[in-house]
């Protein structure tokens, strides 16, 4: 037991750090925002250091309910990095309305996500998922005086609760027909015999997880929540929880359902293709950039699921690479959105208002173009590489028709990405003034760095990425 505690340092640090920050907030009030921010950032940095220190350790702790391994470590580092960004960009956005709860909620959400990515048991899976979700519901409605934000929070909560219900039902079926909640035990039972109860369990669990990664047809909440939530929170939703949920889904599918390939593979293939197509078609005609990026995230999840459908180590490696590149791109794109304010200081979210942006603000426009071309997977931008890996995994797993369908559908996706670029570069200047504002050094630095990385420079990192993702993926096989 005590030995196990030494292996969950990242989680312990996040718990203690989160509680300290909460206490500080309770006693010092909302004025000391900088202090809470600092405390949260230090906590995340310490947790990340703990994850790095635990690299190379492979263990299963607390009676096989939680894994400490490279796969979880990879996901956690990505989650913590995204959380750091979302805390850093918050004060400039919220201004006077920034509250102590924001970093605290992010910390607890990060804790929950870490547990999701490492769970080896249906119960820890559920605890982690709910810890993350409850924090996320509050974050979505963080601007409580704003109607859209409250609506987003409520919608997210109701649909999230429904998803949790389905997941729990699936879990209960799996438990009932296998007699265990441990992934190993479920895998053993599935390998032995696959009955109708287990299949129902698989369907419900995948449906519940499908909500969390916003795969079609469980994606309805995504555009509304992304649009309503404050931009830093949307940035958070689009990055860290996607990593956690995707890692969780991968672990459940490969670890727990691995032997029942026939049962889950067709579901995953359906989710993948539906997400790619609906994500692409739904984005056409969107006038709000946040809604559009929501559809883009649905679309990208579809590509990741192609890697999962392959069900091979190469597929999982592709998912991990995809997650990293996707998180960098998405955070970059949202940061650009965050940096665009009109003369009165209001955020610009409408796409028509971006018309002629390249002439007013060439820097952000160029960065956005890089992010969008990268999301579309057009070489030489680095967004091409994870898409290539995903399709390679699918072809190697003899899923050529899936790869062909996916890649053809990616052309539909390219349409709306280049449509925004058209708005920014080809159209005449819009009425809206978008004055340049200084002072956001962190944001600008991150935008520049990620845009540069996603241009050709990223290719130089492929050897490193290949080793890291191969180590992480090997754990599951």
């Amino acid at each position, binding site marked *: 037991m005590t030995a196990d505690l030494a292996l969950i340092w990242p989680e312990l640090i996040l718990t203690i750090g989160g509680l300290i920050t909460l206490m500080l907030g309770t006693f010092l009030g909302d004025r000391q925002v900088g202090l809470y921010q600092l405390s949260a950032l230090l906590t995340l940095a310490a947790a990340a250091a703990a994850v790095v220190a635990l690299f190379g350790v492979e263990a299963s702790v607390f009676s096989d309910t939680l894994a400490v391994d490279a796969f979880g470590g990879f996901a956690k580092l990505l989650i913590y990095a995204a959380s750091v960004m979302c805390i850093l960009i918050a004060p400039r956005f919220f201004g006077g309305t920034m509250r102590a709860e924001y970093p605290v909620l992010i910390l607890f959400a990060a804790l929950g996500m870490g547990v999701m990515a490492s769970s080896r048991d249906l119960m820890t899976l559920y605890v982690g998922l709910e810890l993350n979700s409850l924090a996320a519901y509050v974050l979505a409605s963080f601007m409580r005086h704003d109607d859209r934000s409250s609506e987003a929070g409520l919608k997210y909560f109701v649909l999230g609760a429904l998803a949790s219900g389905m997941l729990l039902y699936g879990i209960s079926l799996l438990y009932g027909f296998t007699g265990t909640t441990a992934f190993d035990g479920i895998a053993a039972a599935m390998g032995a015999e696959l009955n109708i109860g287990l299949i129902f369990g698989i369907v419900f669990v995948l449906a519940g997880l499908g909500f969390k990664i916003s795969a079609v047809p469980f994606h309805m909440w995504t555009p509304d929540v992304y649009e309503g939530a404050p931009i830093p929170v949307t940035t958070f939703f689009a990055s860290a929880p996607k990593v956690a949920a995707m890692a969780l889904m991968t672990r459940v599918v490969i670890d727990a359902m691995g032997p029942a390939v026939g049962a889950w593979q067709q579901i995953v293939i359906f989710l993948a293709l539906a997400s790619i197509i609906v994500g692409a078609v739904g984005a056409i005609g969107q006038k709000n950039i946040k809604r559009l990026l929501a559809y883009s995230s649905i679309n990208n999840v579809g590509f990741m699921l192609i890697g999962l459908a392959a069900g091979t180590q190469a597929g999982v490696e592709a998912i991990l690479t995809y997650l990293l590149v996707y998180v960098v791109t998405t955070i970059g794109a949202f940061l650009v959105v965050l940096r665009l304010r009109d003369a009165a200081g209001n955020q610009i979210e409408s796409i028509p208002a971006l018309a002629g942006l390249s002439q007013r603000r060439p820097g952000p426009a160029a960065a956005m173009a890089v992010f969008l071309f990268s999301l579309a997977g057009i070489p030489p931008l680095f967004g091409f590489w994870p898409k290539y890996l995903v399709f390679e995994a699918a072809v190697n797993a003899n899923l050529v028709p899936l790869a062909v369908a996916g890649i053809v559908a990616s052309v539909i996706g390219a349409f709306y990405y280049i449509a925004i670029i058209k708005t920014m570069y*080809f159209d005449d200047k819009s009425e809206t003034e978008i004055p340049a504002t200084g002072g956001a050094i962190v944001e600008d630095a991150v935008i520049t760095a990620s845009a540069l990385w996603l241009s050709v420079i990223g290719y130089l990192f492929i050897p490193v990425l290949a080793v890291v993702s191969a180590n992480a993926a090997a754990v599951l096989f």
Partner: protein
Amino acid sequence: MSGFPILSLMLAVPTIAAIACLFAGDRTARFIALGATLATFVLGCILWANFDIGGAQWQFTERADLFGRFSWALGIDGMALMLIMLSVFLMPLCILASWDAIKERVGLYMAMFLVMETIMIGVFMAQDLLLFYIFFEAGLIPMYFIIGIWGGANRKYAAFKFFLYTLLGSVLMLIAMIAMIMEAGTTDIPTLLNYDFPPEMQTWLWLAFFASLAVKMPMWPVHTWLPDAHVQAPTAGSMILAGVLLKLGAYGFLRFMMPMFPDASAQLMWLVFGLSMVAVVYTSLVALVQSDMKKLIAYSSVAHMAIVTAGLFAFNQQGIEGALIIMLSHGVVSAALFFCVGVIYDRLHTREIDRYGGLAVNMPAYALFFMLFTMASIGLPGTSGFVGEFLSLLGIYEASSVVAFVCTTGIILGAAYMLYLYRRVVFGELTKDDVKAMPDLNPREWAVMAPLAAVALWMGVYPESFLAPMRGDVTTVVARLAPTKPAGDARLAIGKPAPAKAQGETAHGAGHAGGVQ
């Protein structure tokens, strides 16, 4: 020169200049772009001078395993060399052609052209399948901006159509490439060239490549993006599109489809021939009725490219060499013709043929150059067009006399639409006042026209300069195709040459008959 990474340097020069242009003022950007493209051209000349004809197939090879799964592998053979020369030769002329015509966002424009240059020569240099694909696809981005920002009235539609059309084709090729890499276990192009894929797999791979390359070519019926893109693109954009980008498709046929999938190429030869025959006749007829000059030249490009595909699939030395010469010749001539249109467009701001007439009177120098390029496009002996068309038709005739017959009608129709265009624009009465006011070529325009004219004549008078570096590579491809090559209907037999009676003893005819077999 061995060991010096001249190919990487050629890629680096325009790239660095492109970044510099982004941050430079309008005037500086123009000079940076001109300087960089000229420097690259000089490097290209050094490359050509040091290319060892008849030496190793792949020369100037560089290899760095930078990317783990694939590598920075560059190298050229004779075909690649000639196409690189074409690209670096046209680039400075494109910059000059847009010297005054582009007034807005000059830095970005020049940067896009320089990036385009890097990408184009990168495509021809790549020795790694994935590197090739990255360069091949990357060309979409700068061209999208060039058409969309500096194009004509309907530029946005044309830019979208260009981007999505070519992307849809290309992605299928990517899946085929993945399957090839998986089957052969390497991304190295020289190795893949000698790898024998199973015949049934070849058919699928061939079709996937065809989907991509036929769009790039463009072949009928997937050519419809081209007239839109050409008409809307700025002059220099059309020059580079017609001059080099259309050659990517044919290069892909020759580099990948034919040597890598010889069985499928032979099996699906009829498809290429069929589409080429339709394209030659149909697009020539379409060109005949155009009222827009750029659209007319765009359709003529489709017809010329159809002779290229037919020549390539003749599977013999003459056909392929002829196709390559047409590619080079068309690169120079169509770029020149688009520039000819650009010259008068800059003065009158219309591409309507009817708005002109009688230019021979007030623009004699222009009329002379336009005449030369018109003749080269038709294929008058002495110009570059003749060599290519003659050789490729000779090759096609050996494979199929029917195809040769249909393709030859294209030459006749080509003469019809080009001469008809020339008559309406240059001859006739000089009646319109605004046309009368148009000045003749200025020195900058001379500087663009003269090199193009010189090369068109050089290629027509002494094509051996261009054929010599490529001959060995063509022989390699022909040898690779030989086992599967279907028998042609020409059934050529070596004759028994006898000395002509009058000449008596001076028999030297034996050498003449060996050319075709």
